[in-house]
């Protein structure tokens, strides 16, 4: 594959993942009620892409997916984008600053992202003047959505990772870490193997 083709592979895959996620969310998942609420995979996909591709990609995907959600639901444009940009950005920043390797990180981030989406949407609606009381039902719904999204966060992350993995560039820090934990990149590159036994007779 040419260099241009390889550089377009990742954005193309991200765009397809984002579009399919929005369509599946609006047509199928939103119609499935679990514990009285519907799961919302869109913030989970934004978190996954942020974790895998970095802060800038996360923020751009957050903006684009938020716009898609607002467009397909025919709701006020910009609200969901405004919420998904920080979610994608901070997921990416977490990867860049801490490089978390624990397997449950997507789960915790998914829960946090869903909570931010629910509470953020409530705050923006209040700011826009929707005359709604802070009902217990609203808080209950946000809590239940967080719970349901937490349950599906790991499978969603794994699916996104499997789709994007072949197009992701090799991360030098991960390569270093792998080298450290396995004792080196390859036995051929170990100095001791390359140079042979050190002779002490010359001393």
């Amino acid at each position, binding site marked *: 594959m040419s260099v241009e083709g390889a550089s377009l592979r990742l954005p193309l895959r991200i765009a397809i993942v984002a579009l399919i996620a929005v369509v599946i969310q609006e047509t*199928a998942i939103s*119609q*499935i009620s679990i514990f009285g609420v519907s799961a919302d995979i869109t913030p989970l996909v934004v978190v996954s892409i942020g974790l895998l591709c970095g802060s800038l990609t996360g923020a751009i995907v957050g903006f684009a997916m938020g716009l898609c959600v607002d467009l*397909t*639901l025919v709701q006020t*444009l*910009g609200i969901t984008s405004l919420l998904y940009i920080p979610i994608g950005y901070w997921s990416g920043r977490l990867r860049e600053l801490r490089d978390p390797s624990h397997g449950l990180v997507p789960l915790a981030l998914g829960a946090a992202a869903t909570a931010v989406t629910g509470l953020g949407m409530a705050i923006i609606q209040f700011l826009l003047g929707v005359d709604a009381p802070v009902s217990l*039902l609203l808080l209950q719904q946000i809590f239940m959505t967080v719970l349901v999204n937490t349950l599906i966060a790991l499978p969603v992350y794994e699916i996104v990772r499997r789709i994007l993995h072949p197009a992701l560039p090799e991360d030098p820090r991960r390569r270093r870490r792998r080298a450290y934990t396995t004792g080196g990149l390859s036995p051929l590159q170990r100095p001791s193997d390359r140079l042979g036994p050190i002779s002490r007779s010359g001393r």
Partner: protein
Amino acid sequence: MRDKQVRRRRTILGLLVGASLILLTAYFGESPSSPLHAVQRGIVEVLSPIQTGASKVLSPVGDIAGWFSSTFRAKSQVSRLTRENQRLTRLLDQAQYAELQNQQLRGLVKLDAGIGAVNSYSPVAANVIGRDPGLWFQTIEVDKGSSDGVHLRDPVVGPGGLVGDVSQVGPNFSIVTELTNDKFAASVLVEDAKGDPGVLVPAVGNPDQLLVTSLPPHAQISYGQEVVTAGFKDATNPALHSLYPPGIPVGQVSNANQNTLINSQQVQVTPAVDLRHLSVVQILTRPNPSTERAQLPAG
């Protein structure tokens, strides 16, 4: 080099946030016929066939999950529904007697058939192909639009009663604003002894509740009474009429505290339709047919 990267990252982040804020402000201040809304409608129009296809392909998955969900819900509702069934059987007996009387009276005053004759309103059956998963917008998208005869503000009914009205129309899709949306209001009657009129508004933030406001302070309203659309028509100004035909069930009174009624002239109503589990609706494309209205004999 690193500073340059940080600056670039922050600039793009700022641009994205700025673009979102500009979109939000522009959209919020514009009228529904503005370019931004038109672009949005155009994109929904393009996505609508994809959504319809995906909805059909993925419906078995939804059905399986819905089956499990419904089974758990049904188990918890058995005892309540048994009591409800007994109550409804009593009501049915009363209604059958009332219908017999009603047929005789209709023959006398040549009343048009009520909402029972939905066919006179040219209903168009539509599949729900998208919905807002949150509590805020309370809209659904259906697969019928202006090419099927749907107009803006056409009433929409579902299994059991009123669902809402059409708030946006495209050639092959419509957006239905549900009656739990904060922008919804309709004139209704409570089927008590006098048929007290009121205004139906949502209890925003709680999709399981509605409010009937502006009721007469001393109305004798009690739990379980039916609420139906009033369907008023101003005789002096024919253009002024309700969007909804009379007699469409809206819900049942769920809380009729007499103190609340006297102080704030309102009661709580539970919607007749399960708005969270709608899959098919009917759009009444001719809600105000030129039917013969009841008239008192002159003199």
